């Protein structure tokens, strides 16, 4: 089941660049939350702070607190354990090129020492079914490389890979921006399905996409969160002038 995320006075830097300034918000469990805003506004940095991926860059720094469920991820746990609870799907599909489809999905478990083959088979099938890829690949699971699939299939493979380690939260950093409209709508359908089991945070440049999939939407600008509210409110009656300017296309 998904869990809620409580972010309190979160600040992040790249070198001397203060990319996130005092972010506070509550992301509700078992819903999709969309983050919108112009390029460079800090929304990608923000999701990367939610699974401690931001700090993998040697010049990056974070302060503040992020509680996922009942755990303060910067105080109570190691990054490795956080990332098993908080899955991530990246902008460009990034399956492991040397691995078969099966091994891609199983990688998170196998490489962490999980070796029960029967339950591994079950988890791989379940993950691929949940990412709506099973029917397209079930005959060539171990024969074909993950890199031989189409872009849209690769992205669903990456979602399956994230699901296989059984996370509670799934972060998606512009998951459909490199895909064609058909693949994009498949990913969006998938987000709808996944919401009932996971908490989903999705960064998107596409405002229609935010409106379609998310219950809540946050608007980021210049490293600050300008407004956070129900998606309906943000797109029909935003309280902040800057949000209104952005969604009506006056800048960004």
């Amino acid at each position, binding site marked *: 089941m998904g869990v809620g995320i409580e972010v309190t006075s979160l600040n992040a830097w790249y070198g001397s660049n203060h990319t996130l300034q005092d972010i506070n918000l509550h992301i509700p469990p078992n819903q999709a939350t969309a983050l919108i805003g112009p390029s460079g506004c800090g929304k990608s940095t923000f999701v990367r702070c939610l699974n401690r991926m931001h700090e993998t860059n040697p010049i990056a720094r974070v302060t503040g607190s992020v509680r996922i469920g009942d755990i303060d991820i910067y105080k109570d746990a190691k*990054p490795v354990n956080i990332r098993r609870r908080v899955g*991530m799907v*990246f902008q460009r599909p*990034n399956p492991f*090129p040397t691995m078969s489809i099966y091994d891609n999905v199983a990688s998170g478990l196998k490489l962490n020492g999980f070796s029960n083959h029967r339950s591994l088979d079950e988890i791989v099938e379940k993950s691929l079914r949940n990412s709506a890829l099973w029917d397209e690949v079930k005959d060539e699971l171990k024969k074909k490389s993950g*890199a031989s699939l189409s872009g849209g299939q690769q992205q669903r493979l990456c979602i399956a890979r994230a699901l296989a380690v059984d996370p509670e939260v799934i972060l998606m950093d512009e998951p459909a921006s490199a895909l064609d409209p058909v693949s994009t709508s498949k990913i969006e359908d998938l987000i709808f399905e996944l919401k009932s089991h996971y908490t989903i945070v999705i960064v998107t440049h596409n405002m229609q996409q935010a409106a379609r999939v998310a219950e809540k939407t946050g608007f980021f600008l210049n490293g600050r969160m300008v407004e956070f509210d129900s998606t309906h409110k943000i797109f029909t009656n935003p309280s902040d002038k800057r949000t209104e300017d952005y969604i009506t296309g006056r800048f960004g």
Partner: protein
Amino acid sequence: MTTENFKMRNLFRDLTDKLASGLAVLATVLVIAPLVAIFVYLLYKGASSVNLDFFTQIPKAVGEEGGGMGNAIAGSIVILALGSLMGVPIGIGGGIFLAEFGRGTKLANAIRFTADVLNGVPSIVMGIAVYALVVKPQGHFSALSGGVALGIMMIPTITRTTEEMLLMVPNVIREAALGIGLPNWRAVLSISLKTASPGIITGCMLAFARVAGETAPLIFTAFGNSFWNWHPNEPTAALPLQIYVFAISPYDDWHRLAWAGALVLIVLIVLAVSLVRYVTSRGVMKGAS
């Protein structure tokens, strides 16, 4: 633009295209020609002396008919195996450190610089160095010391290619590995290294092929031996050494054997490289990049 103009321009483009393709073909021929020439000449000079005896016999005394280089082939295999055993793991380990763990640190820069300098050290100097470090303290020549000399010579090439190949692994692949909760060391070993492995293997093969033909570092280390020896701690014959000894001798018979030895050396290197390629390519998936 008039049709006339258009045609002229097309003609010009066709010619440029043909010229460029022609130059590329010419360059390819120039690259391959010396290789083919050497191989054909070796076949011409040496093939007639390659027979079963060549692989099973040791050299005979001057004036006696026949004999072979069996002991030298065996010695080369032992020395190269010892060298690879040392050079490949250390070289790959160094490359992993440069690309994954030490990126941007002073230590990494120092290691990279040292590797580049080591790459430029003449092979005879390497032989003398290992003579002082291994042979002198031990008190005798050995296959082991030859292996050490060749192993050290393999390290810089392998380290630098491993580093280059790991740096070519896209960062998104690394992030994917961390994103599913793998510890950093696991991500490096099972994902980055595996993704870069075809290039790393090529680097190892290049280093191997280069040292397989080295003579100078073996003069002070493996020394040579006229008899069979499989023991790593005894003086040992090696193909390049044997070729050298036979080639500078005044006897026609030995010259023929030297040619045959050169031919066998090249064929063995090609065989070893192809074998490794074949074995390592079997695990690759359909459609993998």
